[in-house]
């Protein structure tokens, strides 16, 4: 007879705690887990460009073009922007936040009232931020503020929420910020929302709504839908501008933040205002931070650092600023920033002793944003020279010589083509003659794939708040309020005090300040949209200089016997050789299409104009 020994069942084998499932009750009673959830929701907020993810979009507009790996050269050949390019319909995130707000109330027993209020406020901040990103791209969207649960009855009509009006979404954002700003806490944090972050979001959202109300209705044919899902009435402009100004001024007057001015060299100072991490930087209000020590890093420096100072054997030079952008920086005497390359009668080049001389006396934000010929980065000279021009006295003209070997020497033993280009066709070398500096890491080794970079992405900083306030004040006719703000930003950039007065601060100048201050920080495309000038500036015409990306190629002059010219540098402006299709923004780009699946599921969804 077989003796079969039964071992007793392990105690509570069927009642083990799962190691991979976390219950609602566990989450909502543990502040650390809630912070973990918040981190996930912050990360899901979309941008149109950044330091990772869709960073390449920086090369798709008119501040920069693509000079990197040739597989992405489509960005230099965008015949138009797809009507779905900025499409966003992330109700998954909205639902997650609505569920979180309901669960905090339902499940949390150990959190006290203040903690619950603080977490709820922060969740509402992220939700309103997401609605701002939605309304920017799609116009009015369904405003869903609680879970929608299907009862499987076969009738889904209760789940069909129609689109709100465009103004209603902006109003929602404004009232949410008002409701949460005094309970949200997180004082002093730059990565989690605090009172001033709510004011920053409010100032930007209200400014956008005001400009949409004003400029959409100034179009010959305003873009609207019958129910104003798209289209804010012109009468609402003043109200929105007033709110934008008030929110911005509350931040400015609080004294909590200051324009960064800690570095003596004004160009380096502007770079530091955006990129310098740590508590000495009191300009940033909210950032998306990275930390190498915790393996949260990005490859923005590897991808975009100047070619000759790259520390890896691949990469570099992808997003390269255009001459168009460089020339938008004014001269310090207030004159327009067009670079002087030819004599007034166009009979000859202008000869510069040093490469960087052509950039002297310019808005210091240029030096903080762009690496130009003759400048250095990380203490290293960035060698930018297209080639040499040899004078031929028989023909009284120059013969141009360039090389496909970067850093090579000419027959006279001196530099022919710079180690950082520019070059007309080699990939991963600038095609425009410029490199980006903003957001490039100054730390050693940070442009290698091994070390990577942890520069932060700035969501809100005081510089933008000054611009928001100035624009709102200007549109409200309060130019005396706008002037000191714009002049403060200019003074930080090296201009004399009070460089502009009521007669010289025009709307186009104000808008240009925004362009040069906030370049590559994900503002330009949204500004062009809300001012309704996208289709005016980018007309898809090769003969329009605003539509084509231009380059500036420096050449060393070889002209023995002529001491005023030999050994000096001249500059040639040209359409960047790799740039093909002129930028073309059409009326159907102001609002993106709504996904067909959303329309199929909910027949109440009105399509956007031109969809």
């Amino acid at each position, binding site marked *: 007879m077989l003796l079969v020994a039964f071992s007793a069942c392990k105690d509570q084998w069927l009642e083990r705690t799962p190691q991979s499932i976390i219950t609602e009750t566990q989450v909502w009673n543990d502040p650390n887990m809630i912070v973990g959830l918040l981190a996930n929701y912050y990360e899901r907020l979309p941008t149109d460009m950044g330091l990772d993810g869709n960073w390449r979009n920086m090369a798709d507009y008119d501040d920069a073009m693509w000079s990197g790996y040739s597989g992405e050269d489509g960005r230099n050949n965008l015949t138009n922007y797809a009507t779905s390019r900025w499409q966003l319909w992330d109700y998954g995130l909205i639902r997650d936040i609505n569920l979180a707000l309901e669960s905090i109330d339902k499940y949390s027993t150990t959190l006290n009232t203040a903690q619950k209020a603080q977490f709820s406020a922060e969740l509402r901040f992220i939700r309103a931020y997401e609605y701002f990103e939605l309304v920017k791209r799609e116009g009015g969207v369904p405003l869903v503020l609680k879970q929608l649960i299907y009862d499987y009855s076969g009738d889904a009509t209760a789940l069909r929420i129609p689109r709100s009006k465009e103004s209603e979404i902006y109003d929602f954002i404004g009232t949410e910020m008002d409701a949460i700003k005094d309970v949200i806490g997180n004082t002093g944090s730059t990565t989690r929302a605090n009172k001033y972050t709510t004011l920053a979001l409010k100032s930007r959202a209200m400014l956008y709504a005001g400009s949409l109300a004003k400029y959409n209705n100034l179009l010959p044919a305003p873009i609207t839908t019958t129910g104003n899902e798209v289209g804010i009435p012109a009468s609402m402009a003043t109200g929105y501008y007033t709110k934008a100004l008030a929110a911005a001024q509350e931040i400015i007057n609080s004294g909590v933040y200051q324009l960064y001015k800690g570095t003596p060299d004004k160009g380096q100072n502007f770079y530091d205002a955006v990129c310098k991490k740590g508590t000495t930087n009191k300009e940033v209000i909210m950032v998306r931070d990275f930390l190498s020590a915790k393996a949260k890093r990005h490859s923005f420096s590897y991808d975009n650092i100047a070619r000759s100072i790259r520390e890896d054997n691949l990469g570099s030079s992808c997003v390269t600023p255009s001459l168009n952008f460089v020339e938008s920086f004014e001269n310090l005497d207030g004159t327009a920033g067009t670079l002087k390359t030819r004599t007034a009668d166009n009979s000859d080049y202008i000869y510069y002793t040093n490469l960087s001389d052509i950039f002297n006396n310019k808005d210091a934000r240029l030096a903080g944003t762009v690496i130009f010929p003759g400048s250095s980065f990380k203490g290293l000279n960035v060698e930018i020279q297209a080639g040499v021009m040899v004078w031929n006295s028989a023909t009284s003209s120059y013969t141009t010589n360039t090389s496909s070997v970067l850093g090579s020497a000419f027959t006279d033993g001196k530099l022919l083509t710079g180690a950082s280009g520019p070059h007309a066709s080699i990939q991963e070398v600038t095609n425009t003659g410029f490199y980006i500096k903003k957001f490039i890491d100054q730390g050693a080794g940070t442009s290698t794939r091994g070390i990577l970079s942890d520069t932060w992405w700035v969501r809100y900083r005081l510089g933008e708040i000054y611009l928001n306030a100035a624009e709102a004040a200007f549109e409200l006719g309060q130019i005396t309020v706008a002037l000191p703000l714009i002049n403060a930003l200019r003074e930080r950039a090296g201009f004399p005090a009070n460089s502009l007065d009521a007669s010289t601060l025009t709307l186009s100048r104000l808008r240009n300040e925004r362009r040069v201050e906030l370049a590559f920080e994900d503002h330009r495309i949204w500004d062009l949209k809300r001012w309704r000038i996208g289709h005016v500036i980018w007309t898809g015409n090769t003969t329009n200089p605003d539509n084509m990306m231009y380059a500036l190629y420096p050449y060393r002059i070889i002209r023995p016997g002529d001491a005023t010219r030999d050994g000096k540098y001249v500059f040639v402006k040209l359409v960047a050789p790799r740039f093909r299709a*002129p930028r073309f923004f059409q009326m*159907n780009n102001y609002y993106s299409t709504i996904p067909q699946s959303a329309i199929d599921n909910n027949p109440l969804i009105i399509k956007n*104009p*031109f969809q």
Partner: protein
Amino acid sequence: MLAGCKYDNYEEPQSTLSGTINYQGQAVGVRSNAVQLELWQGGYQLYTKIPVYVQQDGTFKAILFDGDYKLTYLKGVGPWVTKTDTIAVSVKGNTVKDFPIEPFFLIKTSSFVKNGTNIVGTLTLQRVNTTQSLEAVRIYLNKGTIADSNINLANFSIAGSAIPDPNATITISVAIPSTLSANDYLYARVGVKTTGVTELAYGAPQKVALK
């Protein structure tokens, strides 16, 4: 020997729907790659539009299955009044169906000559819908037959305010660009822009001999 497996056992469509966008029988010239119509067919679960692309001479063609369709405007795209009109069309074999529209301004006649280093265009306009004013008359030059506001090597614009009588004959001239001056010929085309309407209405492109 067996032929290879055919995974797609659905026959491709063979019938053609073609036509011209016209006003009273005269075709309307448009910008290439810009203008579309919408084609809808009800009765199926997938209810989304079929875009019908219009060539620069105003003609369009779509290859479809036989059936009953509705042809309609893509709102706001085209130099005409956007209406909610739908044209029912029954496609069976090769079907021809014109799409009549109501334009604002049209190019009625246009001709071009070379005059020294310029190309001079002579044109007359026709005004139909009077709710919008004349914004500009433009001339475009290009190496090939496609010439419009986005594809051109030279262009010139006369503002509507500088045209006292839109019904009279208008002359517009543009200098021949250096990229074309060495060629044997070029193409010229005129367009008329209505205020508040994004697209221009064009005439036919015409070859102009340079030598």
